[in-house]
């Protein structure tokens, strides 16, 4: 009989569910994709329903266990000890937090059982692996390595904010742990907050902003030193102590003490949506440089402690692909694998893996050539027939192709003509990145494309870079990267010969001058520092996406496309055909391709819900 384990993450941010069958991932999805509420923290009822349906599970008795991704009591202990340590500071926060615990979170076992009951009746053991064990399990068990060093870094779980461990066979041993409140993730989030971005979603923007900082500016150098001298005491082994005089998160309801940061850096906290000036770019760069230094030292310690030649990573900080690229280029490890759902959503999968291998002691099967993530295409999928029926319901004219190669040739021609294409194929991605199944695609050679995609289609900040999706076999033609990067988690430089010379004084020019200067022959995916966040596309893992890029290469000679997530700012990535069609009609996208059905904008009836639709999504 198949051994099924359900993993759940919930109640903090990025709720998700994942299902393992005999150690094989059947399905995994984030709740936000169903509820259309970004980072939805509620119980993932829709995601659970989806993953159980994929495996044909109708009663809990069919499951071996349900695993929740952290230990609530241990987190409660941390809260009490933290409030005690900082008392009388934090009284306001204490009075806000404790009712939530008394009312709900202490009773999480019952809460989960009550939520599961209507979805799938019956009784099943409920397990609570530690938060960082869940991250470690999500990084090691699906990786293609027999054994590896494990590095998990995030904001905070129960107590741990960073762990170093080692994985071998079906076991994981945690060797070192850094505890709250000293946290690289929370430091990065505090800086995100200070630069005027939203905590928990704006970290990516801070990372994207950093290359606009001037590395030669005395201000950047001074701030880097100030951070290391005043805020973050970094030790040789990568462990760190934060100066809590600068941070409010342990006892308050905000991230940092703004007045103290103002005194230290001499700039005020940037208000949301206000102009981005050079000092904030320099601060972002200084923060990014410090973060990379910390991560690199942690990786070095992981190497020294374990002696392993391979590293796996998870936790929100593992989504900092610039730091990941630094680890790779350092040569510390022969190979690096990062869980694509590295944030808390991935904790659902990790919890299930921990239950299967650690709790049940099941043997692990390793495929050294390929990881177990199935390209991270683990969510719901929709057949062409369903899409055609939906199109009829919406009164949306479309062309259904019998020949997919022909479809690819036609879409490639539209892309080459400068059109932006919504691309909806197969099962939805698990994790924060769209990897060619729920993507918006465009021509990377087009000099106007970054501006157009940001402002007219994604409705987001103009400075934000776009990533290339490149045929795996062609990576070396465009980028200085010697291995696949299937999950868009590695940053590498655009090849020297593809770059165009920069004018004198380039780093001192305004953000917009630098942004719109043509930096390479693939300008839409070349960041201002000539870096690119790469997704390599393997034919066996994502055949349809590979075929489209191949068709674009046949048409243009370039084996890559701009790939950005299929959503607008503040909206979760689309899940269903309805979501995709709605997003298509609300934006300047020219073409929507769902499975074998092609919708052209000019053929569609005018949308009914255009008035004030952007208010639907809170800006991230």
């Amino acid at each position, binding site marked *: 009989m198949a051994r099924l384990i359900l993993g759940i993450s919930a109640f903090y941010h990025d709720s998700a569910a994942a299902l393992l069958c005999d150690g094989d991932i059947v399905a995994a999805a984030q709740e936000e994709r169903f509820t259309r509420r970004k980072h939805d923290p509620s119980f993932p009822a829709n995601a659970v329903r989806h993953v159980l349906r994929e495996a044909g599970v109708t009663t809990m008795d069919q499951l071996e266990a349900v695993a929740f991704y952290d230990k609530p009591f241990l987190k409660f202990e941390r809260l009490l000890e933290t409030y005690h340590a900082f008392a009388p500071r934090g009284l306001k926060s204490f009075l806000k937090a404790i009712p939530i*615990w008394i*009312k709900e979170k202490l009773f999480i076992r019952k809460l989960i059982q009550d939520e599961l009951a209507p979805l799938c009746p019956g009784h099943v053991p409920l397990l609570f692996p530690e938060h960082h064990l869940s991250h470690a399990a999500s990084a090691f068990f699906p990786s293609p390595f027999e054994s590896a060093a494990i590095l998990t870094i995030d904001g*905070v779980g129960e107590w741990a904010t960073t762990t170093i461990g080692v994985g071998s066979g079906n076991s994981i041993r945690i060797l070192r742990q850094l505890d709250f409140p000293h946290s690289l993730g929370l430091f990065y989030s505090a800086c995100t907050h200070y630069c005027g971005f939203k905590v928990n979603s704006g970290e990516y923007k801070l990372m994207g902003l950093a290359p606009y900082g001037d590395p030669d500016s005395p201000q950047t150098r001074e701030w880097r030193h100030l951070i290391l001298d005043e805020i973050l005491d970094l030790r040789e082994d990568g462990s760190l102590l934060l100066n809590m005089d600068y941070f409010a*998160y342990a006892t308050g*309801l905000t991230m940092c003490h703004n007045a103290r940061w103002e005194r230290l850096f001499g700039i005020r906290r940037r208000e949301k949506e206000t102009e981005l000036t050079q000092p904030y770019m320099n601060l972002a760069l200084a923060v990014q440089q410090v973060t990379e230094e910390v991560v690199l030292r942690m990786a070095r310690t992981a190497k020294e402690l374990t002696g392993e030649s391979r590293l796996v990573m998870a936790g929100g900080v593992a989504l900092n692909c610039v730091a990941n690229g630094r680890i790779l280029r350092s040569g510390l490890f022969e190979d690096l694998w990062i869980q694509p759902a590295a944030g808390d959503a991935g904790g659902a999968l990790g919890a299930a893996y921990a239950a299967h291998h650690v709790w049940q002691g099941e043997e692990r099967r390793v495929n050294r050539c390929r990881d177990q993530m199935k390209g991270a295409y683990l969510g719901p999928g929709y057949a062409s027939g369903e899409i055609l029926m939906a199109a009829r319901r919406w009164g949306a004219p479309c062309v259904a192709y019998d020949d997919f190669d022909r479809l690819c040739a036609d879409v490639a021609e539209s892309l080459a003509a400068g059109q932006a294409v919504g691309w909806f194929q197969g099962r939805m991605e698990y994790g924060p990145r769209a990897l060619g199944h729920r993507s918006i695609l465009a021509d990377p050679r087009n000099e106007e494309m970054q501006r157009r995609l940001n402002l007219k289609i994604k409705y987001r900040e103009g400075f934000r870079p776009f990533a290339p999706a490149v045929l795996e076999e062609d990576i070396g033609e465009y980028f200085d990267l010697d291995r696949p990067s299937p999950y868009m988690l590695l940053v590498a430089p655009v090849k020297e010969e593809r770059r165009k010379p920069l004018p004198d004084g380039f780093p001192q020019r305004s953000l917009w001058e630098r942004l719109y200067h043509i930096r390479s022959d693939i300008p839409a995916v070349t960041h201002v520092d000539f870096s690119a966040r790469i997704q390599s596309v393997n034919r066996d893992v994502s055949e349809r996406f590979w075929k489209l890029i191949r068709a674009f290469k046949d048409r243009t000679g370039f084996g890559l496309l701009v790939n950005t997530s299929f959503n607008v700012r503040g909206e979760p990535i689309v899940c269903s055909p309805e979501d995709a069609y709605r997003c298509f009609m609300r934006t300047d996208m020219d073409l929507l391709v769902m499975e074998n059905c092609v919708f052209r904008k000019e053929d569609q009836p005018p949308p009914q819900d255009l008035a004030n639709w952007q208010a639907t999504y809170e800006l991230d």
Partner: protein
Amino acid sequence: MNIFSDLCGFMKHRKKYWMLPIILTLLAIGALVVLGGTSAVAPFIYALF
């Protein structure tokens, strides 16, 4: 109730018996708060608790 045996098991495992009076007091106060109908919606900007 399961919650009490779970909490006792946790405190025994972690050897943190000092939590017992705090938890009992909080549960008592919490019962009043809950009965009073105070909202338990989290007001945080980062979900630390």
